[in-house]
């Protein structure tokens, strides 16, 4: 038997002076949140790897599902909508796929993040670690499935090669903006679900409603046409982050029904990015404020 060597490993748990009056300011908490993630990058990486390995391990087709999933969902919508609406835009499958792909990434990440903290209730009661790593890992794992989904996009592009353009290189830029927004949103649902266990049900329905209210199966122009007598509604619809994101993805992948692909609207993307960073700071603050109570409640 190998004897236990004299060990020099020490945990990172700081020697802290802790007291009840722990009301730290918002900026301080956001700073702590950033430090939490920076110091625990490796933990995030392990959690992401574990997540990916698990999802691929037990199914017959393994990771192939990540490619098939958005394609099959697209087929469902195409079949359904070709019965309801007869004359959709040309190359309709590619038209909706450009929205299904990012939406699946968002909804899967949020669904996963919602239970990310309560899933680890045992660990939280036994080990002191920054809980922020859990929703971060859940959303980061989503990036990988999105990347696999772009393989499906390439396959689809072979059938609609006329839409192929150099503007596809902007997909990572749009995805980056989406990631910041997703991260911010995930902190909120992850922390909220600790206190309200039925938040998961609510989130599921909100996501479904959000999808149908966003210009994914139809274009923003269609929405503007429907609500032409209600300019406020059109403004509100345009402020939906996924209106901006879907329009951007569609512009670089599909173009518009009447024109080939082009550059996305960088101004609205920049506005969304700035708003998302502000939102992220806010939800990091909320999360860090609630974090000390997690171990008592889970």
């Amino acid at each position, binding site marked *: 038997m190998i004897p236990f060597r004299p060990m020099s490993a020490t945990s990172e748990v700081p020697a802290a002076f802790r007291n009840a009056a722990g009301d730290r300011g918002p900026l301080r908490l956001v700073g702590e949140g950033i430090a939490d993630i920076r110091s625990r990058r490796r933990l995030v990486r*392990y959690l992401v790897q574990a997540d990916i390995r698990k999802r691929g391990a037990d199914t017959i087709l393994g990771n192939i599902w990540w490619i098939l999933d958005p394609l099959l969902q697209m087929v469902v919508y195409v079949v359904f909508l070709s019965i309801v609406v007869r004359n959709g835009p040309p190359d309709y499958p590619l038209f909706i796929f450009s929205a299904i792909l990012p939406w699946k990434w968002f909804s899967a990440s949020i669904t996963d993040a919602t239970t990310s903290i309560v899933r680890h209730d*045992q660990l939280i009661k036994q080990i002191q670690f920054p809980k922020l790593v859990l929703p971060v890992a859940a959303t980061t794992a989503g990036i990988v499935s999105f990347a696999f989904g772009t393989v499906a996009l390439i396959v689809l592009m072979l059938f609609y090669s006329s839409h192929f353009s150099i503007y596809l290189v902007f997909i990572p830029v749009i995805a980056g903006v989406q990631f910041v927004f997703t991260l911010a949103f995930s902190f909120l649902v992850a922390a909220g679900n600790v206190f309200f266990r039925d938040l998961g049900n609510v989130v599921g329905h909100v996501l479904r409603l959000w999808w149908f209210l966003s210009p994914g199966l139809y274009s923003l122009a269609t929405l503007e046409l429907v609500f032409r007598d209600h300019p406020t509604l059109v403004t509100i619809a345009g402020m939906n982050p996924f209106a901006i994101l879907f329009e951007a993805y569609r512009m670089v992948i599909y173009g518009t029904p009447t024109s080939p692909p082009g550059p996305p609207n960088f101004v609205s993307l920049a506005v969304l990015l700035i708003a998302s960073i502000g939102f992220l700071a806010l939800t990091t603050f909320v999360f860090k404020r609630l974090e000390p109570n997690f171990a008592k409640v889970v």
Partner: protein
Amino acid sequence: MAILRRPPRIQPRADHAIAASDLGVRYDLRFTRKTTIRSSLAQMVGRGHAEQFWALRHVDLRVQRGESLAVIGPNGAGKSTLLQVLAGIIRPSEGVVDVVGHVSGLLTLGAGFDKELTGRDNILLGGAFLGLDDAVTRELLPSIIEYAELGDFIDAPLRTYSSGMRARLGFAIATSVDPDILLLDEVLATGDANFRAKSKTRVIEIVAAAKAVVLVTHDMNWVTEYCNRAILIERGVVVMEGEPADVVETHRVHTEEARVRATEAAQAAGVDPRIVQIR
């Protein structure tokens, strides 16, 4: 705020490993296990006074370097809550805690593993959760595998493990850290007789190496044998502090009294007292 009314009484002296002053942990029963939005709304609309429960109250504690403190008491008295506060897992609602040095907690073992991952991946993940440097974890890997006696199972998913194997792995991971301050919560009853003996040896080793130990246990022999001080907690309050033998004796007397009371209550209610006795 409590802190303004009652300034911390801890003197900035270097010789203590743990110092707690007027420690209190309050649980808000509004947000206990599995609250739903509906029940919270009902509470807000109806009589909105939050029910509160003090798991610990007015606890003063000082553990010197080189000391080994036993925490005993009946179930639900607040022993584990105290360890959670010392480990930094729960922030006290009241009072101050000062912990000097690196803390490692061996709280209830075997839980918190990822069943789908292999033993090896669980060790790496566990190390990352504990905040160990990755190079250190990888260096410790062979000795952890060897110590847990898992053999080829180390590369099989954890769900294929027996509960004994899982407990051994948990113990091996948790004890791979070399802490300044060690917190133990009922870790002595792990695995079969063989492993129990082995783990006892290991715990004694760590206890000897650590600068301070706080231990929660129901094993009174351990308390009198390996601890140099003990506290008795009942209903969140420290009722006694002193020599392990004295505290253990008081605990025994209190437990006996509680049993007598329960028997009498059962008799008054017309239940066969033997049923209560057996419990």
